[in-house]
């Protein structure tokens, strides 16, 4: 059998000016959403924990840019970016984080279970690797239902070591399903570096074992991610089967709110801060004449206003009634 090669995944045309602007808007929205969530967490308005993807916005947005309404994504514990990239409403996201009835999960899920089934986001996941077989199954359903849709499956480098990764990629490759596996390799699974957790810390190479093309891209370069993802989406939609994309990136914040960053150096973090995908995209768009400084400022203001309105909406929303704690366990509410 001929194995598809990485070259398969370098063909997608670049987004036009309007879509570049939309991409930047979503990246800014993710960044500001997470900064505002962090701030709300600090002042005690949000409980639990949260995993910020600050610094990883290009991979979320680049991977989703060519997705259409009927397409799905599956996401992770670090899923705010994916959710916004797939088009979710930040007001309902904040409402979820604030534990309100107007949230995407009516306050039942919180950050780790943010989802938007109607919008095609099958859900963040508290289980590392949990989304991989689910994405594969959604792709199988798409095939059975003869739809032209695809599934974009996000996961981290840490998830690659889970059996679920192996089982899912094998089935997807075997059955040639319309799913794109996007590994956001940010070098660490919590505190453990890829060198300390993987016998071979190059994820894209794993694609060979599953009969699909694999490519490693600069995950902080929106265009690079989009190029690979666009090609993989087109390939999947045309019946060509799954792909694996490794987006090299970095989380600029700690793993979760309780991380003390003992396992990495200030220098490393500073190095990656210099590769922040948002200024990079802004620079590229300015250089290419797609958007000038004033245009960027306007976009930032637009995002700022959306965030402020969203928080106001969330804060003004009702909290769930504790008497309804066992509602929605089953359809129609038949409890044991």
């Amino acid at each position, binding site marked *: 059998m001929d194995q598809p090669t990485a070259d398969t995944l370098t063909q997608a045309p670049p987004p036009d000016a309007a879509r570049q602007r939309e991409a930047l808007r979503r990246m800014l929205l993710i960044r500001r959403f997470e900064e505002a969530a962090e701030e709300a967490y600090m002042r005690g308005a949000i409980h639990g924990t949260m995993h910020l993807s600050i610094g990883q916005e290009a991979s979320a947005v680049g991977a989703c840019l060519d997705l259409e309404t009927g397409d*799905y994504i*599956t996401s992770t514990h670090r899923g705010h970016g994916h959710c916004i990239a797939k088009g979710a409403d930040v007001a309902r996201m904040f409402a979820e984080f604030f534990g309100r009835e107007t*949230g*995407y*999960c*009516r*306050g*039942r*899920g919180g950050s780790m*279970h943010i*989802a938007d*089934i*109607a919008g095609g986001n*099958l*859900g963040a*996941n*508290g*289980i590392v690797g*949990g989304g*991989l*077989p*689910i*994405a*594969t*199954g*959604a*792709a*199988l*359903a*798409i095939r*059975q*239902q003869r739809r032209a849709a695809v599934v974009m499956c996000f996961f981290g480098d840490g998830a690659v070591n889970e*059996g*679920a990764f*192996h*089982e*899912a990629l*094998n*089935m997807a490759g*075997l059955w040639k399903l319309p799913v794109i596996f996007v590994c956001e390799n940010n070098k660490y699974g919590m505190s453990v570096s890829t060198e300390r957790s993987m016998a071979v810390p190059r994820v894209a190479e794993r694609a060979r074992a599953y009969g699909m093309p694999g490519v490693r891209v600069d995950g902080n370069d929106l265009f690079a991610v989009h190029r690979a993802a666009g090609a993989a989406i087109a390939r999947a939609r045309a019946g060509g089967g799954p792909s694996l994309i490794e987006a090299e990136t970095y989380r600029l914040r700690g793993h979760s709110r309780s991380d003390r960053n003992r396992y990495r150096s200030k220098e490393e973090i500073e190095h990656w801060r210099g590769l922040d995908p948002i200024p990079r995209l802004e620079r590229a768009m300015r250089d290419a004449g797609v958007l000038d400084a004033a245009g960027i400022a306007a976009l930032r203001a637009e995002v700022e206003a959306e965030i402020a309105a969203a928080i106001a909406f969330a804060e003004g929303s009702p909290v769930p009634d504790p008497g309804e704690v*066992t*509602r*929605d*366990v*089953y*359809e129609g509410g*038949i*409890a*044991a």
Partner: protein
Amino acid sequence: MNAIVSIDTGPEGAACRDISYADAIHEALRSALEADERVFLLGEDIGVYGGAFQVTRDLVHRFGEGRVIDTPIAELGAAGVAVGAALAGSRPVLEFQFSDFATLAMEQIVNQAAKLRYMLGGNASVPLVIRMPAGAGTGAAAQHSQSLEAWFAHVPGLKVVQPATPHDAKGLLLAAIDDPDPVVIFEHKLLYKTTGPVPAEAYRVPIGKAAIRRPGRDITIVATGIMVHRALEAAERLAGRGHDAEVIDLRSLRPLDTATLIDSVTRTTRLLCVHESVKMLGIGAEISAAIAESAAFDRLDAPIRRLGGADCPIPYAPGLERAAVPQVEDIEAAAARLIERGE
């Protein structure tokens, strides 16, 4: 009042044939595959091989490899594939070759399938059916003979049924396939070849309803799965000793039909629970506790007794294997002790 009620009664006036439990499941699967193109089967060796217990036999020939899917040996992945397909609008029926292998897939079953509707605020539905061949008696030893249904019944978001007859095997499976939530079905391996009357058409047995298989006055014996048959046999023997036992086939572990149980115990004043799974934290514990916190408590004339699997893995040697799970004589003796104590 004392007459033995046929253990299998089909829908009013339906024409029944005697077929095996395995064939009844086959018939349910076939009719669901015919009726709804969203339904598909997945599992290990369910295609040309026909399944380890020949339940899916010819279905791949009838419906093709697109709807009767042999998975790789990858239980966690297969369960996750089923969850994802259900979320995306299909209706998967997943077979574990032996329920023991579901230990590899608890993550997807319990963290994902069972919780998604709730975690997502009611905005998701996981219409997934999981078939679980279970139980001892085939000499397959500790890793192929477990009865783990109590684990699943402990998990909100799942429904758990355990049909004892061909009739219920078909009717509960069809009800499970209709259900918008995940349903786990425990099928005892020794039952596959047993036969009983089954209507030819499609029908549903409601999930969550126990069935009184033999009315009686002196004691309530609640049994699950294969133990229903042993309990009925024990009841016959007890009748010979002048004791009139009521036998209830629990059918559904979650939801639990406490109303039927409480009503029965209130009448008989004695309760014996019988299941094959390990006694400690088996479903008998829940039944006993549910009765002990109900109004029926004050009506009890004897302590509640449970018979369950011995406190060990299922052993291989035939004599040991038999000793590891309740037998007819154990049920008879336990019931007689309870009745005679009160007299």
